[in-house]
């Protein structure tokens, strides 16, 4: 076609082209999301739906399901003391996440600085994370042991205490002990996430700030922390998830005891389902647990500025 004809056609052609491109872009983006969405759909969303439906039914593996309405929820909220204890313990567990993150942040900053041998330090701090949680539980259970554990041994050798401290047998110290073991394992992991985040902060911002006369404290709070928000948010969410990924840790170290002092919602769900064969009740507890986590995540999201803490790029 001649150039004249093409020029005449052009104004009508542009809007069509534009729309097609936009649609093509949207389709592509959804295609990018598809594999992950599919996997989550199969293995998280559908099981969650299964749990929600089951929580309103009475069912056992060999009998058909019958409608039960709010039976389980009623039992849970009004009669089940274990549920409330487990809920409280879970909240405490989640509340302890910032402690680990703060320590990890300190370590990340130290390791990020220009010192010699930081690769070695980084490796040593991380080395606890790849260890199987069962192994972590076994070794820390021994370390906390009242009679033969290492911690008591050291404390008594240094004459810090007169009589051994019953860590895992004590109603007050059992949960903090598990939390300590958990932090020990997670430090390396938080540190890695925070290191990745620290690298994303351009050096010249610091340089500009110090030229402007800001001291280290100022630089930390005004530059580092805000720009680390996505990573900090991520760490907090992971810390929150520890309240159920630490399942093995709790199970191996105390099994939920003594009494119910270390019973978490996740161990309770597991016991209800697989020890007591009450899958329907376990499903109800799962739903409540899930709602709790969503609520906390939403609150954390708001606190870190929305959009999963990501700083809007200009």
């Amino acid at each position, binding site marked *: 076609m001649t150039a004249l004809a093409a020029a005449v056609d052009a104004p009508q052609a542009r809007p069509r082209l534009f729309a097609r491109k936009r649609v093509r872009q949207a389709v592509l983006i959804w295609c990018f999301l598809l594999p992950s969405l599919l996997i989550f759909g199969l293995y998280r969303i559908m099981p969650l739906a299964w749990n929600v439906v089951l929580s309103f039914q009475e069912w*056992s*593996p*060999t*009998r058909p399901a019958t409608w039960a309405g709010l039976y389980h929820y009623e*039992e849970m909220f009004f*009669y089940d*003391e*274990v549920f409330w204890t487990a809920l409280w313990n879970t909240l405490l567990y989640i509340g302890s996440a910032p402690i680990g993150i703060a320590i990890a942040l300190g370590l990340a900053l130290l390791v990020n600085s220009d010192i010699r041998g930081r690769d070695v330090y980084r490796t040593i701090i991380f080395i606890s994370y790849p260890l199987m949680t069962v192994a972590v539980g076994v070794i820390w259970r021994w370390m906390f*042991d*009242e*009679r*033969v554990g290492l911690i008591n041994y050291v404390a008594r050798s240094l004459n810090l205490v007169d009589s051994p401290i*019953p860590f*895992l*047998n*004590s*109603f007050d110290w059992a949960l903090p002990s598990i939390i300590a073991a958990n932090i020990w394992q997670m430090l390396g992991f938080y540190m890695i996430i925070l290191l990745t985040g620290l690298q994303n902060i351009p050096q010249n911002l610091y340089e500009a700030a110090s030229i402007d006369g800001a001291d280290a404290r100022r630089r930390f709070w005004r530059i580092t922390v805000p720009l680390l928000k996505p990573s900090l948010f991520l760490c907090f969410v992971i810390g929150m998830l520890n309240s159920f990924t630490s399942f093995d840790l709790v*199970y191996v170290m*105390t*099994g939920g*005891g*003594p*009494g*119910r002092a270390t019973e978490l919602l996740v161990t309770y769900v597991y*016991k209800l*389902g*697989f*020890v*007591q*064969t*009450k899958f329907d009740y376990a499903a109800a507890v799962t739903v409540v647990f899930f709602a709790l986590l969503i609520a906390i995540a939403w609150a954390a999201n708001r606190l870190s500025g929305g959009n999963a803490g990501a700083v809007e790029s200009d």
Partner: protein
Amino acid sequence: MDRRTMLKGGLALSGVLAMPAYLRAQSAKKLSILTWNIADQEAYFNEVFADFKKSNPGVEIEWLDKKGPEVPVFYQTQLVAGTPPDIINTQGALWVEYAANGALMDITSMLKGNAEVAKRFNADYLANWTLDGKNFMLPFYITKTLLFYNKNLFKEAGITAPPTTFAGIMDAADKIAKGERTGLLTLNFDWLYWPFFKSEGVDLLTPDGKKAAFNTPKAAEVLARLAKGTDSGAINKTSWTGRWVEPNGAFAAGTVGMHHAHSPAFFFMKGQGPWINADTLGVAQGPGGWSTPNSHGLGISKGSKNPELAFALLAHMTSDRWTQEFTKRRNVLTGNTASDQASLARLRGEEPLTAAVLQTQLENTDKMTGNWPLPFDAALKDAFYPELQNAVLGRKDAKTALNDAERQVNRLLSRRA
């Protein structure tokens, strides 16, 4: 590498990787058996199964073994999916949950039709696996609690004979406890500690199983004594962790006077405690001759496609020949009376200490407690044991703990009845 090749390659790869390595055999003669934490006996199982296949050609046997805490997870998932193993081995009272929920096959008629199989077993132990008058399992190996004691520590404390009552045990524990030494350890999972209560006349539930019966002054006394003992160090606190490895390890370290455990504990401790031999380790019956069984049974899943064949395998595994062989490998009694007598006779000559330990398993079989055929046994444990822990660890006093436990147990019973 362009996109298309990558996609094609990816699809092909997924196809290959998605093929199950375990292709279900189309033959109707396939049996699967799930055992409980006995993976070290692989050689034995190979032999038993090979022998069975000789008399039953064309049969394939799939052997699965899972650790104790994983059996329920695995089995129940398979149940829901409709592919339960034909034969299942359970420990303690877990079988009741499955039987009551209809997962296990009622083998009463099969037993009636195979009189010589039914006659083999110790009647008291076989009765451990009946619910509402129906049999659900055959004994695989039997264990119950006994009292182990460290003869050296006894001598040092001036105790001449093993105590036979709860009060006697507690007194002995007090005498031995000093510094790093503790007097008594007891295992706590699966109601193994119940003989302490039963020997003092405390029952858990009323005979009809509808209400709690343990909230009595006597029970409060026992509980208070246990709490005092734990506080003073007479009772080793590891007792109340509900574990297996730790208490046995603690006794094997040689610093505990008595260990109230079931017979497999002996073999674990022997490995960890080189000081253990006939002169240093004593065995005695539990308080008042009472004990809690914690035996292993073999049952058939209701969903099994080959129940007769499964029963034949059970009969084969519990035969005189193979139970004797099993005792040789594992030093446990199997509930097959004739074979147990033969094994004991042999052990008395070869390993007198082992024989002494195992002998206790056959005594006082009419005084077994802690084995309630209730479908919600696990929930019952969960309602009772945490309160017990509260009391013995000094969190609540005995009376309050018993009141709270009674409240929870009654609520459970009313909701589950």
